[in-house]
């Protein structure tokens, strides 16, 4: 559908330099031989595939790396996510994930939340419903990877 207002601007926001940079030079895209857990997530309807490996150290995500194939949105999301959570407690990682999810559902406050750091570059995805799944794919893997992990500061 032709967009109602300035598709150009909107798309330029979606595909801003930060996203393309993470797409073309993905961070933490490497094997992790001593991974505590590896989770695979795919979108069977488009073929996108993310493999996330996490190494835990007590209550901390010591390392997070990924592999897979996907569009710029899912790749940038995975790349930034691994940056954002590495070295963080489970509780912190969960908070980031929740804020990220809120941002994608259109929560303006979340889109301004400093906590999200670079991930805010993905805020425009909220306006592209068919791409939200792409952005969330690595986070869904993260959720499963941390399943049952209780983090410092977790309420319950």
């Amino acid at each position, binding site marked *: 559908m032709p967009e109602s207002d300035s*598709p150009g601007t909107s*798309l330029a926001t979606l*595909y801003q330099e930060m996203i393309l940079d993470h797409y073309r030079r993905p961070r933490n895209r490497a094997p992790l031989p001593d991974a505590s857990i590896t989770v695979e997530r795919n979108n069977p309807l488009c073929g996108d595939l993310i493999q996330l490996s996490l190494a835990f150290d007590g209550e901390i995500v010591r390392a997070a790396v990924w592999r897979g194939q996907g569009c710029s949105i899912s790749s940038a999301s995975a790349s930034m996510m691994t940056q954002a959570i590495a070295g963080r407690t489970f509780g912190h990682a969960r908070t980031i994930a929740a804020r990220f999810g809120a941002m994608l559902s259109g929560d303006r406050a979340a889109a301004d939340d400093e906590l999200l750091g670079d991930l805010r570059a993905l805020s425009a995805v909220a306006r592209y419903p068919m*791409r939200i799944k792409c952005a969330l794919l690595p986070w869904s893997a993260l959720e499963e990877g941390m399943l049952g992990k209780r983090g410092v500061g977790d309420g319950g």
Partner: protein
Amino acid sequence: MSSLAPRSDFPILLAHPGLRYLDSAATSQKPRAVLDAISAYYSEDNANPHRGAYELSVRATERYHAARERVARFCGVADADCLIFTRGTTEAINLVASAWGRANIRSGDEVIVTGMEHHANFVPWQQIAFEQDARFRICELTPDGRIDLDELRAMLGRHTRVVAFNHVSNALGTINPVREIAAIVRERSDALIVCDGAQGAPHIPVAFDSLDVDFYAFSGHKMCGPMGIGALIGRRGTLETMPPYQTGGDMIEFVLDYRTTWNVLPHKFEAGTPNVGDAVGLAAAADYLDGLGMDAVRAHELALVKLATTALGDVDGIHIYGPPPEDRSGVISFTLSDIHPHDLATILDGDGVCIRAGHHCAQPLMRRLGVAATARASFYIYNDEADIEALLGALHRARGLFGYAGV
């Protein structure tokens, strides 16, 4: 070049004036005549066919019967009882793989499909082969995306029980030489030949009776008809000797406590209340397409796909898959530099250009092409040159957004 069908025949194109719908290989849009036919059926003639002893039910039965005859005529089937209404291609192929396959495929047999099949003509064969302890074999493709006929010749033999291939590839557009393939198979084996016509019937004149295949399947929704209806065409002898697929009302003759006998064709393969409404809609679609002329449909798509191939071919970084446009239906499958097809589709959508991105339900083919996904534009009777221009313009915009020069 204008569209073949008046765009104003299609309510959705009127509702969305800027819509550049280039995804007809996934599903086609519907002319008003089809929607009206469905509404009129429910507003005037609706009843459960076959079962009533009153005039309204007789009318419903006649409408259903006439729809079958009409669709049979559309695809060159003289014996309309051999056209079984199904939900679509997928169900039609499952019917054959399951009902014919369970009764006829034995341990040690071989089931051959090709590397370009849609999952609907791949997975059912893979699964039934596994279940019957038969060997599942995949005939590979030539570098330009055709079935490798030499390889096929070499694979065929007395163990070959089934050869299943599509008339036209949905992912590449390749038009396969059905008659030539059938001749190759017949010469070297007694295999059942199953042709997936999901991308054939909507786009190319089809005369089943002269194709020399055993089964041909297609979907109504890809040929201007409603969703929920399609057909399996078979040969009388094969259909009569194979067991039924689903059982229940309408398809039985006598239901004894511990044994049941079957009704005659086509009923034997149509268990339950038939989908008269959508069958009537599909018949109206056949009317509509025959009104345009299927030769004209093919010519129109060929002209568009040639134009598009030339135009897109000039775009820096583009890679187009499949054989040259003369041997393709109205499909152009491509990738552009390092821009992921999904991103491409989103950017194009910004200009109202609808294309499909992904594996096109053909993961085995994607592996063979060495990509995870392609972008696919597909044309139909309501597309015109302006659609191609819009596509081209949007591709240039995509390049710009991804930082490629020359926009």
